[in-house]
Structure formats: structure tokens, C-alpha cells
């Protein structure tokens, strides 16, 4: 029973060894030319030190919210697609209605200009 999980254990071990090995070997044989920039903490390319109270464009939030809304659509569609044949005509019509309602929202958002960055 537990034998089925053996490949996973092997993978975990290999992954650990690989990670450990890369760090150890690069510190042993790698060249070291430290500089101010290289020593700074990594912050996704942003300035690492500064005020945390920066203003973000409201558009990020808008896009994020819209993404969640339409992402949910996909979440509903996957189980529906799996059971598509068993749900029959009823499922098709029901999903069609769902898409139409979402589409109304999409048209509204589009006309309102929420999808334009400028």
C-alpha cells in the first residue's frame, strides 16, 4: 500500500539533494565578485528600501477584481465539462444562461472602459 508512494519519496529526496548540491557546489567552485547591488535584498525589481505607503493605481485593483469574477467562470466550467454528456440538454441550457449573464457583465465592463489602461 505504502509502496505506491515510493516514487514520491524518491522525488523528494532527489529534489532536496539537488537544492543542497547546487548551493554547496556553487559556494565551493563559483567565482565571488560581491557588489552593492548584488547584496541588496531581492524585491521583484522594486526599490528595496523606501516608504511602504506608496500609492498604487486603482486600475490594478479593478483588473484584479475583474480577473476573479471571470476566473470563477472557468471554475464552474471545468466540472460541467467533465459531466457534460451526463448532464444532457439541461446542463447545456443552464451553462448557456450562466454565460449570458456573465456576458452582460462583460459588455458592461467593456463599455464602461474598465478594460482600458489609459
Amino acid at each position: 500500500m505504502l509502496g505506491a508512494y515510493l516514487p514520491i519519496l524518491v522525488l523528494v529526496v532527489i529534489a532536496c539533494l539537488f537544492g543542497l548540491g547546487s548551493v554547496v557546489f556553487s559556494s565551493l567552485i563559483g567565482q565571488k565578485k560581491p557588489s552593492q547591488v548584488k547584496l541588496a535584498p531581492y524585491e521583484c525589481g522594486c526599490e528595496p528600501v523606501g516608504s511602504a505607503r506608496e500609492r498604487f493605481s486603482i486600475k490594478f485593483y479593478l483588473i484584479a477584481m475583474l480577473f476573479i469574477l471571470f476566473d470563477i467562470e472557468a471554475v464552474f466550467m471545468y466540472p460541467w465539462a467533465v459531466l457534460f454528456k451526463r448532464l444532457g440538454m439541461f446542463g447545456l441550457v443552464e451553462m448557456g444562461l450562466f454565460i449570458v449573464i456573465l456576458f452582460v457583465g462583460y459588455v458592461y465592463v467593456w463599455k464602461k472602459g474598465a478594460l482600458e489602461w489609459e
Partner: protein
Amino acid sequence: METIAMPAINLAVIMPEILLSCIAMVLLLVNVFVPGNNKAYLGYLSIIGLAVTAASAVGGWGPSVSAFNGSVVQDNFAIFFKVIFLISAGLAILISDRYMVQEDCNQGELYPMILFATVGMMLMASGTDLMVIFLGLELLSICLYVLAGWNRDNLKSNEAGLKYFLLGAFSTGFLLYGMALTYGATGSTKIQAISSYVMGNPGVASNPLFVVGMLLIAVGFSFKIAAAPFHMWTPDVYQGAPTPMTAFMSAGPKAAGFAAFIRVMIFAFPMLRAEWSDLLWILAVLTMTVGNIIALSQDNVKRMLAYSSIAHAGYALVGFAAVNAEGAAGILFYMLSYAFMNIGAFAVIILITKKGEVNGNVQDLAGFGHKKPLLAMVLSIFLFSLAGMPPTAGFIGKFYLFSAAIKAGYVWLAIIGVLNSAASLYYYLRVMVFMYMKDPEEDFEWAGATPAIAVCLLVAVGATLVLGVVPGTVLELAQKAVQF
């Protein structure tokens, strides 16, 4: 591969909800495709939509029809409440346009938002599954959070929206937790199934899981109807929200809260009447007293009406605590008359206040009675009705609620109610004293009523007086509605 068996679909039962949702979606699109800043036409289209929906809802009057595997029901109780919701939405829409233009927040989405909120209320009234009731409540609440914060340039309105959202989400958590515990104790979210489980297993009444679940559900609904001690959000939200939305919130959603509250308590927990009736007794006394006493010291008319709305929830709870047919019919009648008299009073306040809601204090009303005699008279009628003076709808409503309490043996509850009602006269009459008996400190010009507001006032005054003088027909309908 066999197909999955579908439950019987009876769309006729939820036809009013379907209609109103479709109308709201169409209006949403009309709003973005038709250019121009004048959005009043959307309001008129919404009112046509509400009328069509009302016709469709009233068409179902008669024997109860259950659908969707017992999650939704079309019965007279739901239909009576649906008519109340549709009326309060319609009246609120009539008074919206002028206010929104005056306050520079005349976005056309207002009207679809009100319609979606109404759909949520209708689902709450007709849902017989805790999940459907919860979904309706969420649809309603999310729209209301937005409507409360509609005036984006006004700090007070922002505060109202945020406060309502935070506290509303909190109370929704209570409600949902209560529903989850009830489900855990009884094994179903269907009200019918819960009730038969409780009948079959009387021992469940001593199951802490079940008792806590019932209490948490009661707390969640008490928050929605603004009953003390869960009323803290009401004054700030009602004062900060745009006045037409305050009018709407105090009439429609309060009635929706009562509809769902009554449905869950009377249907799902009928065996435990003795327990929750005592609970409601205490809630009613607290709510009436807190609302009235704090209202006494308010200068801002909108805030005063917010506290008075808490007190009115208390009067309705008196009928609820009685747990008899008269009490339930009394609540239906009272909620209907309250929609008319309260939205009417707010309509006059819209005409009194200037941009930014200045001049909203009682003192600013000095001389109003002489400058605008007709509007002052109309406001007086609404205030008399709110205070419960004959021959207005408020008197008949209170009479029925209190007599139901006496019939159920709650004589003291009725006495406390009448005393509270007497105390409330002070702050209602104070407005009239300023209107008629004080001289204005500065010469002040008040705007006249726009046609839409005039129609709203006419309907509201007419209904307040008709329900007060010849309440027979409507009372009969309300009694028929509660013959479960």
C-alpha cells in the same frame, strides 16, 4: 453513460425574481449604451419593471406552490412581502433622481442596483431553504453596501458604506455559522426537513449545537432588522447614506429581514416557541426603549428617523413575540404602512436639505410650515402616522400588534409598547413645533417638489390615510397571507 436525474423545474414559482433580474440587466446595458447625463429615464423604466414584476407576483396569490425540491415556495406570505419590497423600491426610485443630481452622484447604475437588491429581498421572502435565504440576503446586502456609499465625494457616505460593509459582513458570519450548526444538528438546510426532524426528535432541543445555532441565526437576523442590542450600525449608516437610499433601507430590507426571520423561526423551530418567544420579548422591549430614548435627544432629522426606525422594529417584534396569527398579520400590515409613511417622511427631508445635506437639523425647519404649508402638512401626516395617531396607518398597525400581544398573554409587553409610543410623540411633535411655532432665524428658500417626488408623496399620503381609515381589505389580505 446514464444521465443525471434532474429535479423538477418549476420556473413559474420564481418568475417575479427572473423577470426583475432580466429587467435590471437590460437597464445596466441601456445605461452604458445610451449616452447623456440625464439618467431619470432609467428610473421610470425601473418603475415599469417593478410594476410588471408586481403583476407577476400577485398573479401567484392562492394556494402555496413549492418548487426546486422544497427550496423555494410561492405562498401568500411571500407574495405580500414581495409587494412591500416592490412598493418601497418604487417609492425610493421616485425620490432618487432629484437628490442624486443635487449631490452630483447621478450614476445610472443606481437603478439596476436597487432592482438587484429587490430581487435579493424577494428571494429571502420566498426561500424555504436556509441556503436560498442566505443567498438572497447576500445579494441584498452587497447591493446595500454599495448604495449606502453611493455618494463617493461625501465622507459621511463613505463612512456609512464602509461601516455597513464591515458590520454587515460580521453579522452575516453569525448567521451563516448559526445555519451551519443547525445543519449539523438536524442534518438538513431545508426548513421543512428541519421542522420535521425537530418534531421527531424532541431531545434535540437540549442539544447545545442546535440551541447555539438557533441563537446565532436569531442574532444574524436581529442585526438585519436593526434590533437592539445589534443596532449600533443603524444611526451612522442611515445618516451617512444618501437620503433616498436611507428611505429604501429602512423600509424594504427591514421588511425582508422580518420575512426571513418569521419564516425560519415559525417554520423551522415551531416546537421551541416557548423558548424563542421569551427571547423576542426581551429583544422587543430593548429595541423599542433604546430606539425611542436615544431618538429623544437627536437634532438631525435623518438621525432621529434612524433611531425611530430602530424603535419601529421593536414594535414589529412585539407582534412577533406574540407568535399568533394576529401578530404575524400585524407585522405584514405594519411593514406595509411603515414603507409608505417612512419613505414619505424621507421624501420631504430630501426637499428640505440642500447640497451636501446641510440644513438637516430640526432647528433649520423653523418657519417651514408658513413657507411651504402643503409640504409641512404632508410631513406632519407622516410624523403623526409614525407616532401612531389615528386616523393613520401607523395607528391601525400598532393597534393590531399590541392587541396580538395581549391576546397571547403578554399584557406587560403591550403596556411597554404603548408607553414607548407615547414617548416617541415628543420627538415627532418637536419637528412640528419647529415647523409651525418657531420663527426662522434667517430667511430661507426651500425648493418645491419635482413631479416624481410629488407622485411619491401623493401615493404615500394616500396610502397612509387609506390604510388608516379603511384598513379592512389590506388587513384581510394580511390575515390570509399568514394562514400557513
